[in-house]
């Protein structure tokens, strides 16, 4: 089961609306898309409205995304984070590192 990434691009930012579970089996897909996205945009917004679960592998991808953003002086924000996912972010300290709106 893979995740679905719906991409919309404006001059201002690129939005990835992601559907599914960010776990070991499909995080690599998002990783490639994330890194590639920063070649074209200064602001990547991840819409987590349809993300139910993030595993440690998913967290690693988000960390990688965040690091890439910093390196390229860009910004990565995450919106519509569910309480379940927020719990994971809080638990792992990711809520301090990631730009959650």
């Amino acid at each position: 089961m893979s995740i679905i990434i719906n991409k919309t691009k404006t001059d201002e930012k690129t939005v990835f609306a992601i559907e599914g579970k960010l776990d070991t089996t499909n995080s690599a897909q998002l990783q490639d898309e994330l890194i590639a996205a920063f070649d074209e945009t200064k602001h990547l917004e991840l819409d987590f409205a349809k993300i139910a679960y993030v595993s440690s592998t998913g967290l690693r991808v988000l960390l990688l995304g965040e690091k890439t953003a910093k390196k390229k002086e860009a910004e990565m924000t995450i919106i519509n984070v569910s309480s379940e996912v927020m719990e994971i972010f809080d638990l792992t300290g990711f809520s301090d590192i990631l730009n959650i709106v």
Partner: protein
Amino acid sequence: MFYSTLVIRNYKSMRLESLIESVNFETEKVNKVIAEIKRSALFFASNALISLEGESKSFGEKTAYEFMKTSKVIVGVGFWYEPYRFEPQTKLAGCYAFINQKTKEIELEDFEYTKTYDYLTSDWYTQIADILKNPYEVVWTRPYIDDSGTFAYMVTASAGVFDEDNTLIALSTVDWDINEIIEELNAIKPTTGSFVILSAPSKDLIISNTSAANRQKTAISELSWDIYADSFELDGVNYMALRRIMDNGWMLSVQIPTKEIFAEMESQMEIFSIILISFAVIILFCVRVFISILVIKPIERLALDIAEVGNGNLDKQIQVKSNDEVGLLAATFNKMTVNLKSSIEQIAKEHAERERIGAELEIATQIQTSMLPSVFPKFANHKDFDIYASMLPAKEIGGDFYDFFFIDANILAVVIADVSGKGIPSALFMTVAKTLIKNNAQSGKSPKEVFDIVNNLLCENNEAAMFVTAFMGYLDVKSGKFIFVNAGHNPPLLRGKEKYDYLKVKSGFVLGGMKDISYSQDEISLHSQDELFLYTDGVTEAMNNESRLFGEKRLHTTVNNNLNLAPKELTETVKQEIDKFADGAQQADDITMLVLRYKGK
């Protein structure tokens, strides 16, 4: 259909051709006879002259008699003089030899006999004398039945002898029995309704048919149809005519009813069809045999060889070597077999390689597991605490680990951690993290200091952005003081007086994720029989077949339902609950638990 039309057309022309051939053949025959009769007529005319000049009666008589011995179609020969021409004193003179049709004997009417036979008034004589005008010319009478001597149905040919004034002196007669020729003509009658006409130069008809009664003497001018037409209608029947004109105006004509040509052709066609069908059957049979030899046999052989290849003999090369499609198939199959063999070898090689990697991974898992303290009870001399831990690796090597060790005589450090991801990278990262944590802790640093340092060390050259969530605590086994630090790890459960509750922990960021993070440590005081239950997300995130998680709530309930179990039994019970929940779903992550029961004070 086209073929059968062609056959019919061919058959029709062939039939006509054969008819024409028979007519031609008969014509030729009749022609020869006519020529012979003509020669004979001239011969006896000359005999008449010789007899006259030589005044020899016996010469003529003898010649005529001898001639008759050898003749077949001629039934009578003779010569006759005009009145007083042979001898001045004799009016009638001549001789005649003939075959008596009743006795089949040759009879001779000599000069003596003819003196009394008034041939001059006979029908044939007047007829001939009337038309005979020139020497060397042969004339013919109308067909008639001779009622005097031969009683045959005949035609008489005649040639004359003339004097200087071109006055007739004598004439010869050669009697041709046309019965025989009529019978022969009957034989060429192609169909039952057809008839053959032989026409004498006098334009009288001798109509040939099966019975002699039908012979007619009719003038052509009296016919109700045009004898010279290629086709005509007679009494409502359509006829087709084949015609030949011979010497001296003789004519042979065959009349065939058009219908009967077709009728016969149809019946012939039936036979022909049967022959054709039989022929087709034979050809089909031959083709079947031919196909069998050329196609089926090689295919059967091919199938046999392929079956052998199918049974695993990839060295088998098919021996069908023809230049057709079967040969091509065999060659292609041989090529496939070779390719298949090399593919199988390649797969076997890759399989062996995978087996090797798999075996190495298994060893790696064993090494990883063996790095964790696994002999229990541990620290048996310490009566102030009990500790038990277990790590159940998932199928794929993971990154969970736990650790516990004494920093000094009274301080016991416990660590539980989970490296992000799976596989060899995680396992390697885990080894590094575990070593760094233990080394730094043993150098007398506080939990916070250890995490601050280890985090920075793990961040170095961490291009893959791997990280580890970790919880570490220092237990003073004498006082029960517990100082702990959390780097993004699941909060432990603490059993106080009555039940377990999640320890209120301020979580810092994961280790290795970001540089220069300042972790904060907390401190609690443990009382006798207080118990800490540490675990990794392999417990709370165990999944069932419906992709539902075991969850913190279910873990909380489980431990609270089993308050009086010893540390080892507690971990086993939790594992049983997880298995019950997973209901056969494969374990996706390492399941690690550590239970620390404080007994001091």
